[in-house]
């Protein structure tokens, strides 16, 4: 052992079979986190360490070590964290809250590290027998040349006393991950899957090698920073406490007496790279979210309109089409913020260009839409059409900017425009060059209200192995795609983000939607779940998929409303709108072969239902926006599993039919055709839930049958919360920025409630640079509702005011309601609704930005 600095310990471990030596680095980090790296001590080729993911070099905290015996080293760090490193056989045990044993690394001794070697093993080592596929592999008609031979790493990570693990997106599978005993392991490899299956561990468009575990006492996380193809096996085990050596056993001795504990063994395997594992030791869900966010970053506050409603289709055909669709929303009085253009808007899928026959005047089109406070988004995929007359291609070709084949020539593949090449974003020069293509000067026809969509960035290569790059293509710095595959898409959307940021000189918040992603994508892009289908089963799959993304840091997530492939029937599309109106990223999108499905095309009654769903979304935008601010600050995802808010409620651990928006709204989307009642679990002991539409209260810790009709979106506000809403209607979110606020106060059993409201200009960085924002805390206690500032440094000019306060669960009709703000006092009128026990206070009137107290007597 060597102490490099306080908080960084270094060890050498040896493969006793072949004497290959490895360096092991332990870093004790702030916020109950620990990082362990294992790499070859003297590799013949440098093993790739993933760049572009970690936001800042993690801060070390001091560690106090002591030898328990010759074989065991104990370390204390942070307030309550401990590790025990066992030297032979190698093993690492982690404890949180002093005594709680949570994670054990390599206790199943599955650690396997294929060191780089020369072919035919001429280095004098005990040769590992060459097996088929070690130096070359074929898949269908493709051959992977594997020039560097085998290089995989595997290890077992065991979650002790846990029965549920989550995360490692992207898979169309249940939120609580399944045992892979009878299936393939969960696979992490960014690929474009045509009409993907659900309930399946197969790889999809993005990868985040991050897993969380949760039980009644603790939440922990394990993140392995590796961008190669990965496989993760999950098995539910019983851990016999007898087999644990005495020192560990003691830690259970105090709390548990059973001889067996549940344990989840996860076996992680990556094709190359190093072991670079981060352990987040919680102990609460919020702690784990924050700990992961510190390493990989959070979703910066999106522009307000980005969390409003988006209307997309492959494709809106021309400027008239866009004009007519916009007019349709006006005519049917349906709020909408963004209109999207898919690949057909370009000149032959040459991104950064327009089909001038259909879009002769794109600036004017964007300006006409902007009159309504609305934005537009165009698509820009990473494949570049091979055409010397296409300026992007010609320029990039000249500058040698394309990804190379193993023989050094430009790699050429097939995608939408036909023969194409791919930019090598790994080169910082190319990254910057690509970013600058988004400047107004280079992207002709773009305006400040135009934003971007990066699709097909796994990347999708129609004639490639598994429809993507061969693993032996070469990136800048002699990197094989094998090592970096899963971050290619992220680099593209990071460059796009930089481009949009630069074009406004850092003033405006960019918006980018990406299909491919990796850990860290949350910093620059929204993610959608790709090409789903118009089926009830796919609607049902949305919640687990979005939850998996949310808990692994991707906050702005959504699924195509209605399903991308096929035509939804009216009931399905209505239910999908209702569900998506309570999910972070809310966009309608459809395949080119489907029938038109703008909200007014399903009959008057369904138009009304869809309008209601979208309007409901708009009323909650102040709440959503506040949640996204908290995501930026605290890495707390806006969409949460029930257990994140009710960590001790064991009933919630497997729930993925319902979810929370922040800590105040419980959402149970209806995902079956023709149901008249649904069985909803209301979490939380001693918790009251108020139906947001009928104000009817329900008790927590109960599963209840709730009667529903086509109007129903079962959503409940938690007793004890205060939610800011905008009940006035507007055609788009940005036009409502100064509209007054209604506070919905739902009282808990102690007649208390609290909530927050964040507000700013909705689109610039002035909230950061000039502290132009309002962040209020509302607290209802002892018959007083107070508004106080959560950050007095923030100042933002707004004419917004409090127009209404609704208090649910108030036991009697108040005699008098008065409000004080500074020296001003007013006696607002109120009404009381006996049956629902609701007080509605009329026009109390204070400005959003002032401190005030409302007193009920």
């Amino acid at each position, binding site marked *: 052992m060597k102490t490099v600095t306080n908080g960084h310990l270094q060890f050498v471990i040896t493969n006793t079979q072949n004497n290959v030596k490895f360096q092991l680095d332990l870093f004790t980090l702030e916020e109950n986190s620990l990082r362990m790296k294992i790499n070859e001590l003297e590799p013949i080729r440098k093993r790739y360490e993933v760049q572009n993911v970690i936001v800042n070099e993690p801060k070390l905290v001091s560690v106090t070590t002591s030898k328990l015996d010759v074989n065991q080293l104990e370390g204390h760090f942070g307030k309550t964290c401990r590790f025990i490193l066992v030297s032979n056989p190698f093993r690492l045990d982690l404890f949180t809250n002093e005594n709680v044993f949570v994670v054990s690394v390599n206790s199943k001794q599955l650690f396997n590290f294929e060191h780089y070697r020369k072919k035919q093993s001429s280095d004098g080592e005990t040769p590992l027998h060459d097996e088929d596929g070690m130096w070359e592999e074929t898949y269908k008609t493709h051959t992977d040349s594997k020039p560097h031979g085998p290089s995989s790493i595997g290890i077992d990570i065991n979650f002790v006393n846990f029965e549920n693990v989550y995360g490692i997106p992207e898979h169309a599978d249940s939120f609580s991950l399944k045992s892979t005993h009878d299936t393939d392991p969960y696979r992490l490899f960014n690929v474009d899957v045509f009409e993907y299956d659900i309930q399946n561990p197969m790889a999809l468009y993005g990868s985040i090698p991050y897993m969380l575990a949760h039980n009644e006492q603790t939440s922990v996380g394990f993140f392995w920073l590796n961008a190669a193809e990965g496989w993760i096996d999950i098995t539910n085990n019983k851990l016999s406490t007898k087999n644990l050596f005495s020192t560990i056993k003691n830690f259970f001795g105090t709390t548990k007496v059973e001889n067996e504990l549940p344990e989840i063994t996860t076996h992680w395997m990556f094709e190359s790279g190093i072991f670079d594992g981060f352990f987040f030791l919680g102990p609460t869900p919020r702690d784990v979210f924050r700990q992961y966010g510190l390493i990989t970053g959070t979703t910066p506050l999106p522009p307000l309109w980005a969390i409003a409603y988006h209307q997309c289709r492959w494709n809106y055909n021309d400027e008239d*089409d866009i004009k007519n669709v916009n007019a349709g929303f006006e005519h049917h*009085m349906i709020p909408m913020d963004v209109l999207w253009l898919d690949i057909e808007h370009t000149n032959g899928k040459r991104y950064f260009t327009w089909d001038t026959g259909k879009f002769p005047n794109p600036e004017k089109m964007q300006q006409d839409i902007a009159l309504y406070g609305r934005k537009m988004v165009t698509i820009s995929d990473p494949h570049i059409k091979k055409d010397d007359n296409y300026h992007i291609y010609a320029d990039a070709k000249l500058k040698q900017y394309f990804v190379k084949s193993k023989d050094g020539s430009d790699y050429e593949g097939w995608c939408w425009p036909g023969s194409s090449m791919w930019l090598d974003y790994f080169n910082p020069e190319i990254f910057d060059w690509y970013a600058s293509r988004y400047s107004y000067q280079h992207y002709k026809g773009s305006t400040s209200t135009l934003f971007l969509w990066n699709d097909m960035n796994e990347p999708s290569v129609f004639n490639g192995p598994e429809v993507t790059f061969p693993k032996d293509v070469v990136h800048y710095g002699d990197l094989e795609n094998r090592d970096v595959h899963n971050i290619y898409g992220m680099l593209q959307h990071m460059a796009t983000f930089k481009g949009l940021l630069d074009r406004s000189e850092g003033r405006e918040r960019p918006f980018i939607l990406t299909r491919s992603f990796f850990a860290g994508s949350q910093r620059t892009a929204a993610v959608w779940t790709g090409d789903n289908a118009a089926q009830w089963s796919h609607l049902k799959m949305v919640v687990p998929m979005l939850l998996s993304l949310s808990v692994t840091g991707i906050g702005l997530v959504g699924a195509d409303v209605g399903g991308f492939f096929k035509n939804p029937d009216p009931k399905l599309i209505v239910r999908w709108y209702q569900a998506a109106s309570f999910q972070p990223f809310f966009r309608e999108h459809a395949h080119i072969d489907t*029938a*038109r499905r703008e909200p007014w095309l399903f009959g008057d009654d369904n138009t009304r239902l869809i309008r209601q769903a979208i309007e409901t979304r708009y009323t909650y935008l102040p709440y959503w926006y506040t949640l996204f601010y908290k995501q930026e600050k605290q890495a707390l995802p806006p969409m949460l599993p029930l257990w994140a808010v009710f960590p001790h409620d064991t009933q919630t651990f497997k729930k993925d039919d319902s979810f929370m928006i922040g800590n105040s709204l419980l959402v149970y989307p209806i995902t079956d055709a023709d149901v008249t009642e649904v069985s909803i679990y209301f979490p939380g002991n001693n918790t009251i839930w108020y139906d947001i539409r009928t104000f009817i209260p329900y008790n927590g810790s109960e599963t209840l049958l709730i009667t529903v009709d086509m109007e129903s979106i079962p959503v409940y506000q938690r007793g004890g919360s205060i939610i800011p809403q905008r009940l*006035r*209607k*507007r*055609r788009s979110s940005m036009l*409502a920025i100064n509209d007054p606020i209604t506070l919905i106060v739902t009282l808990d059993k102690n007649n208390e409630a609290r909530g927050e409201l964040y507000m700013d200009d909705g689109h610039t960085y002035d909230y950061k640079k000039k502290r132009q924002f309002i962040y209020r805390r509302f607290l209802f206690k002892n018959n007083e509702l107070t508004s106080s500032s959560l950050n007095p440094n923030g100042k933002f000019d707004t004419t917004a005011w409090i*127009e209404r306060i609704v208090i649910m669960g108030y036991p009697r009709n108040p005699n008098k309601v008065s409000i004080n703000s500074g020296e001003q006092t007013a006696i607002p009128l109120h009404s009381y609704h006996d049956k629902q026990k609701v007080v509605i206070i009329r026009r109390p009137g204070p400005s959003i930005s002032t401190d005030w107290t409302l007193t009920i007597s």
Partner: protein
Amino acid sequence: MRTVLRGVKRSMLSKYIPSKPFTCFDGSISMPFDFVNDDYCDCRDGSDEPGTSACPNGQFFCENKGYVGIVVPSQFVGDGVCDCCDGSDEYENEIVCNNTCFILAKKTNEQRETQRLLHEQGVAKKNEMISKANAFKAERAQRLEELEEQLKRLEVDLQVKLDLKNQAEELETASKDKHEEAWEEQRAARELLQRDEQIKDIFNDLDTNQDKSISIEELKIHTELDDEKENEFTNDEVRTILGGDSATFDEFNSTVFDQISNSYKKITQTVTNDQTTGTESSNPTPLDEPSKVTRSENYDETDNEKYDSNDMDDIDNKDDISNEKDQPTSLGHTKHVHDDIAPDFDEETKKLIQIADQARKVFEDAEEKVQDIKREIEDLKKRLEIDFGPEDEFSTMFNECYNYEEREYTYRVCMFKTASQIPKGGGSEVVIGHWESWGSEPNKYSVMKYTNGVSCWNGPSRALTVQLQCGIEHRAIDVREPTKCKYSMIFETPAACDKDIASKPLDQHTHTEF
């Protein structure tokens, strides 16, 4: 207290009296007048906030002096978008809305006048179309009446002709039968005669010593008569045939001839020129060759024709059948018992046949005529069933075709029939719809639907919706494909012009309240 009540139509002002409490229009609540336009929504129907955005279902009236007063949803009030031309919806917003009412009025009037003129001109043409349609319709009705009358007559006539035909055919058949019977008799007699000749012939042939008797020796040299070819033709066997050691002519006639006539061959050196005897056992080859040749030539011909043209199949097939008539009906089997040709019918029968032929032709002609008329009646009725608009104004467009040229395709619509897409770079025409129906109310006759076109790969069957608008000429001015394989066309026609618009007088200062 406000002196101006924002957002209220003049006609509604009486409901808002500042000195009295205000009651929501739906009668639900009353409130102090101060609550009106106080930026808080009290009435469920939104009536207390006509001038603010407070009520989600409220309505704001912009007076738009100089133009037309309109009602906009309350959500347009103070949202930064200039919805009223007088800017009154943005009265307290930072953004400045220029008063565009005057310009708008001017522009609208100009547009309206242009439209009016267009409709006026269009209606003139439309009226022509209607009168033409009416004339046609009357003509068609009359024609139909005539045809039905005619049909009735012809059907009676047809019956008469059928009877006549049957009578003539009866006579014809009787006469023909008689003739054929006679011919059969005659032929039987001749066959008998022929047999006698043959007997004589063979007898003389066998009777080499001319002793009027066939001896064993004389017959024995005809080994072809030996039933058991493997061994010798013995005297006993010969004797069995002869029925004794010799046979006289009468004996030969009664017993021997029938035994040997089928196998008997003349001794070769006694070649005769007579071809009429012994032909039954000779090879029929010479007859075959020419017919085979003809046949194969004919195959080639038909094949060639088939490759040469593809839309004349029907006619070709007919040719094939008529060619067949000249062909043998059986290959190889050319056995014709007699070279006899039946004699012509006698004059009387011939006459009867002629009469019957005539009767048949007359009947068939009459029958064809009836069919033609029936078809015409059906067509007329079908056309009469098509809805050509309230005034039959679309009637003259029936089956008229119009093209629209686009970058890649020509779109063609044949009114009330079919619509198709014709690729410009070659390739076959694709039917994108058959006439289905008009649109739905209230503007039923402004939309034509052509459905059930050729199915799309992986998709529904193609369909075309035609939006009709007033124009002086019939022409398609735009075709799009908003959803894959669902086409929409804008079509100008005088038939879509509106006489109400055409005759609406121009009012410079309209204050319509919608």
